[in-house]
């Protein structure tokens, strides 16, 4: 298949919401709280992470408001420390890590591979309860007065010098960690053992591949974080001395253990986003993803390399020159599979018949912003530059370009793309296009000035700064306001669309994935008869051919 196949979108006027689907299969709040249906659990997750996204976003707003002026005026210094700590903890552990896997992944992976549910539905529900249980601990830590260690729980600051709720927060993150371990475990087993007949590894949608790679990282990395946090809590409560130099311990050991998880955690957060972009790019270019196997293997390569670069967070902490050299080199190697992905997405669009619906706009925003985020990562991976830029706003801008510009844009791309499948209704197109553009502009306005601030030497985590930095900070805060509107709009119009959105029909995008060949919203058991996969992923000719032969049946 060389050129793109042009398909007309179906007439949605005739579509109706199916009488039976997973949403109305059972009634009452308890039927949701005790469900074992992966789709309902995905919705539970979606509601919870949206709530915590708004909480974390509020903290971000307060931070930007404080930084409007050089003087500390809005909040006291220690309150400011708590704000950025809780912004980080909430956004990373309660939003970004579960964002795509636990919602879209949970909903779609079983359908994409052609099965009725994840391998362990009850463990899936347990993951959500663990998430909520951990979230309660973290909320308690916030309500009781906050934490101010930074999201990194750096020792000896966290173990000896602070009088805030470190133990509560640490336990919260520990518990949430098990929720992500179980999600990852469930995905890996499901993808290995539950694929439909004919669904070979190289017919899997790339979304499944990238979630698989992320799951491997969750399963291998998170336990190390768990034991590290246990040691921090023990150090703080009974003074075991593992990280305490006065007793012979070494704070650097904490750094090694913490970053052994927390660097791969970056890929736990971004890899599922890559998967969304592959799906969206293919669908709105009406072309098979260019270099399917290269994209698939680059996910695996990123997961693999991701485990051997952690010490790039420690270049200024006294690791030896030789290990710094090796870690710097390995860090730059990660850029190779990431670049493979970006090139392949770009080539997917070449000669495609591209349309610019909202998911595609978010995906294009992703490609631009992620590229900047990734390239500045190479700056930081090189030793000399890192000494100058580390612990400045350059780092802050870099990881927000990857995490917000990358992951959050991908999440929104995916949420809009699959919203018709999740709910059976379309989101309103023009206002959501507006919100995509608003977020893109607002995002760049917020974080581009931070690159400059960091390069000029403004350190992160301070709530006052020399007056000459004010112009850029005002720009950044103005951008954050725009960005805030950009992110608030989807929350409102998506809720609106639940009732008033146009009825979507089975396959509003004329996409090829298995999930689009069933009704929307799907049945509890997903498929009436189990599917047999007899073609490659992203085979638009198969789809065009199929539509020709389609016979209208009474549903």
């Amino acid at each position, binding site marked *: 298949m060389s050129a793109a196949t042009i398909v007309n979108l179906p007439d949605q006027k005739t579509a109706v919401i*199916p009488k039976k689907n997973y949403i109305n299969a059972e009634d009452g709040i308890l039927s949701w709280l005790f469900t074992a249906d992966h789709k309902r659990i995905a919705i539970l997750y979606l509601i919870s992470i949206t709530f915590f996204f708004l909480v974390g976003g509020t903290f971000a707003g307060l931070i930007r408001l404080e930084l409007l002026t050089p003087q500390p005026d809005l909040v006291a210094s220690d309150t400011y420390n708590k704000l950025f700590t809780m912004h980080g903890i909430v956004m990373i552990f309660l939003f970004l890590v579960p964002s795509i896997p636990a919602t879209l992944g949970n909903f779609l992976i079983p359908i994409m591979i052609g099965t009725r549910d994840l*391998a362990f539905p009850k463990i899936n529900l347990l993951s959500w309860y663990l998430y909520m249980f951990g979230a309660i601990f973290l909320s308690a830590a916030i309500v009781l007065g906050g934490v101010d260690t930074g999201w990194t729980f750096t020792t000896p600051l966290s173990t000896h010098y602070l009088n805030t709720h470190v133990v509560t927060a640490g336990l919260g993150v520990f518990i949430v960690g098990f929720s992500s371990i179980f999600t990852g*475990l469930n995905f890996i087993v499901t993808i290995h*053992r539950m694929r439909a007949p004919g669904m070979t590894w190289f017919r899997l949608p790339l979304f499944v591949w990238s979630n698989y790679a992320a799951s491997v990282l969750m399963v291998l990395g998170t336990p190390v974080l768990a034991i590290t946090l246990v040691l921090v809590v023990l150090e703080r409560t009974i003074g075991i001395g593992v990280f305490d130099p006065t007793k012979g311990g070494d704070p650097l050991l904490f750094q090694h*253990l913490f970053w052994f998880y927390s660097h791969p955690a970056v890929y736990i957060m971004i890899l599922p986003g890559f998967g969304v972009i592959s799906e969206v790019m293919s669908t709105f270019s009406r072309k098979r993803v260019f270099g399917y196997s290269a994209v698939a293997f680059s996910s695996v390569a990123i997961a693999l390399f991701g485990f051997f670069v952690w010490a790039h967070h420690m270049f200024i902490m006294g690791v030896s020159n030789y290990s710094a050299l090796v870690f710097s080199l390995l860090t730059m190697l990660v850029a190779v599979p990431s670049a493979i992905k970006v090139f392949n997405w770009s080539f997917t669009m070449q000669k495609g018949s591209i349309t610019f619906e909202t998911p595609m706009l978010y995906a294009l925003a992703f490609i631009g912003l992620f590229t900047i985020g990734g390239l500045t990562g190479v700056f930081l991976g090189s030793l000399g530059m890192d000494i100058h830029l580390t612990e400045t706003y350059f780092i802050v801008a870099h990881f927000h370009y990857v995490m917000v510009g990358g992951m959050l844009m991908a999440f929104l791309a995916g949420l809009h793309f699959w919203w018709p499948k999740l709910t059976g209704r379309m989101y309103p197109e023009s206002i959501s296009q507006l919100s995509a553009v608003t977020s893109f502009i607002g995002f760049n306005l917020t974080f581009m000035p931070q690159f400059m601030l960091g390069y000029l030497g403004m350190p992160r985590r301070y709530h006052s700064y020399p007056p000459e930095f004010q112009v850029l900070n005002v720009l950044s805060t103005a951008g954050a306001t725009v960005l805030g509107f950009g992110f608030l709009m989807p929350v409102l119009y998506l809720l609106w669309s639940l009732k008033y959105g146009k009825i979507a029909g*089975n396959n509003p995008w004329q996409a090829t994935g298995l999930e689009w060949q069933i009704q929307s919203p799907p049945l509890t058991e997903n498929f009436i*008869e189990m599917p047999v996969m007899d073609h490659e992923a992203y085979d638009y000719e198969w789809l065009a051919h199929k539509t020709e032969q*389609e016979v209208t049946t009474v549903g």
Partner: protein
Amino acid sequence: MDNAIVATHDTHVEEHHVELPQLRHHFETEEQQREAGTFGMWLFLLTEIMFFGGLFFAYLLYRNWYNPAFVAASNQLSIPLGTVNTAVLISSGFFMALGVWAAEVRKKSLLVLFLILTNIAGLAFLGVKAVEYKEKWDKHHIPGAHFDITEFVNPPLNPKTGKPVEEPLSPDMAQKTQLFFVLYFAMTGMHALHMVIGIVLLFWLTYRANRGEFTEGYVAPIENFGLYWHFVDIVWIFLFPLLYLINRHPGT
């Protein structure tokens, strides 16, 4: 409903086995369910390895840095008790393996017997461990405010030769024995916690086995628990030499 992609599924496989009530609705075949369960268990054990991995890493690092302190402190552990416990745990694993076999050949009373024997051995292990912990308590070798380094700075004299039984440590190095005991308690404590969880599960499995749940062809829970139990055994097989045996008397 859209039918183009669905084809009648090959029902050939299903005809050959008896549908069991334990088959969950979302699995196509019982074999698939069993494979998924076992695979999931292996993955879980992998996360456990990573969990213990952090502690092993810390132990190796500090052992390397503070070798004299770690050697002196590990001499405090009782090899006889450790050896007895290793034997107890290996026999517990042996009974567990027999239990899996009994479930597979559908012998209910044998299965219950082996599960009980596994459990007794597990409890015996924890009993010996408690004796060892008690001894550390009496000697003030529990890390914390009451930790006492006297024994490492002024080791008791050997009545026959009149020389100290151990090489005396400088007070500074003797402080580092506390790190050894921290890691000793963290690692054996974490291991014991896994044993306790295993024993609770064993009681439950024994109860269900006694009702005949696992001797009608549905052996997955017994198999998967067996994997878990053997894993806990293996962790001990690494802990025992690392904490008790290696390099006890340097230079001799």
